[in-house]
């Protein structure tokens, strides 16, 4: 058993040495793989950041709570004060029916027609501003709660833009997955081709190995390790590209965010995401090598 691990360790370092033997060619392959992996990683980070930002959208959303007719000012103000205590509520503003009518007259242009009415048709309204960092689900819940209050006729949230954003994010997420999948196939093919060339370059050596009793598993091993290294180092290149890019962009983005009066901090690749990037890269590389090896190693037989 110890022998077995020793042999694997030897092959591991041998494959590493093979990569170092042709530094330029290896570097080119690593860059191709790295860039392929960096693209979906960049999109992923962008998406994560947009999502992070949009969870704090409470500041912009407003719930209009229409009170039942006949609710007097005192009751309305009491309710406003009560709602103010709610954990997801930031500010509650009461607009009494008279004020609402005055505003409506002023903005709608129906002033004369409204004068013809013998009584004010508008209900009292509470404008509820959700607290910052209220999630979409919490917002829904809040609107529902407000709607069931006895004094309330209707609680309404203009959800359109929120829903649109959500839909957009969903499309973006799918696109990242699709693109990631395609580029992963690209990485597999790139490594597969690199390993194929390595196999053909060492055709004679492989023939000799077979003649002196090397099993296919033995001959395969260094190539699989090479593929694994290509993927792993390619993933590292991708990680460096993404992290470097974020580092370069951090300052202007911080500046932009500051202009919006937010203290949002740009999120980079998290530890799990980095692991996925490196592990996924290594897996793709190994898979590519595996494909090349299974196709070309059997063809090479001593003659």
């Amino acid at each position: 058993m110890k022998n077995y691990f020793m042999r694997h360790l030897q092959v591991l370092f041998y494959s590493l040495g093979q990569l170092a033997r042709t530094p330029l060619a290896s570097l080119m392959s690593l860059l191709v793989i790295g860039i392929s992996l960096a693209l979906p990683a960049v999109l992923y980070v962008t998406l994560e950041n947009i999502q992070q930002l949009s969870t704090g959208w409470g500041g912009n959303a407003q719930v209009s709570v229409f009170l039942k007719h006949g609710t007097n000012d005192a009751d309305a103000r009491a309710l406003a004060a009560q709602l103010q205590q709610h954990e997801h509520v930031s500010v509650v503003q009461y607009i009494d029916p008279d004020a609402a009518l005055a505003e409506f007259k002023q903005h709608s242009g129906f002033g004369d027609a409204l004068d013809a009415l013998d009584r004010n048709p508008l209900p009292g309204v509470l404008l509820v501003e959700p607290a910052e960092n209220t999630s979409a689900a919490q917002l829904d819940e809040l609107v529902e709660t407000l709607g069931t209050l006895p004094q309330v006729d209707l609680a309404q949230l203009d959800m359109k833009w929120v829903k649109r954003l959500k839909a957009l994010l969903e499309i973006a997420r799918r696109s990242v997955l699709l693109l990631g999948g395609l580029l992963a196939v690209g990485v597999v093919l790139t490594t597969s081709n690199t390993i194929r060339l390595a196999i053909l370059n060492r055709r004679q050596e492989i023939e000799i190995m077979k003649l002196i009793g090397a099993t296919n598993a033995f001959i395969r091993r260094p190539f699989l390790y090479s593929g694994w290294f290509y993927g792993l180092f390619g993933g590292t290149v991708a990680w460096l590209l993404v992290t470097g890019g974020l580092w370069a962009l951090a300052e202007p983005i911080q500046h932009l965010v500051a202009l919006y009066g937010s203290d949002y901090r740009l999120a980079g690749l998290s530890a799990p995401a980095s692991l996925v990037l490196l592990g996924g890269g290594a897996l793709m590389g190994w898979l590519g090598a595996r494909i090349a090896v299974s196709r070309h190693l059997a063809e090479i037989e001593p003659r």
Partner: protein
Amino acid sequence: MIHFHHVSKRYPQGHDALKSVSFHIDDDEMVFLAGHSGAGKSTVLKLISLIERPSRGECMINNKNVMKIPRWRIPYFRRDIGIVFQDHKLLMDRTVFDNVSLPLVVAGHNHREISRRVNAALDKVDLLNKAKLLPVTLSGGEQQRVGIARAVVNKPAILLADEPTGNLDERLSDEIMDLFAEFNQHGVTVFIATHDLRQLKRMQKRVLQLHQGELVFDSLEQPL
């Protein structure tokens, strides 16, 4: 040790390389396989090392019927056979030591065992002082000796050689042949394909002669 019973080999293109060849070689023998190029010498060696399979007939090597050895067992089968090639087939980017150690590495021996046996093999072919060199820096005769060391390092039961002296001058050829004879004295079955008539006369060993795929002469039956 090597037993051919009416063995024929026809290649896919329809060329008959061997026609019903029968012979038997015992454990302690050293035998030469003679004949012009194209007579079928290489085919015989390929059948023994399982590079090719017979089209007809029975071929027993080391008490194993080659037809009954599945593909995946071939590497293990080959570990009992040492092969010396005319063009040496050395790995030019590895040292003499690494070349000779290859059969042991492949078979999964441990580090200490490998260095002990490689040094013993290199000592036998008198190249211990060149272990750290690359094969390109060696002369043709030395490269051939590296090939021989690699073939015997695994202590195989059978030693095959395909024109081992083809590119060497007389003095080096004599050296190489004497080396083979020495291994034979240590109990290894040695089977050498050659058209070097001088060596056949000099060594005075059994000779099998092939002509156009047929065994036309066996000195065991018809002494020279």
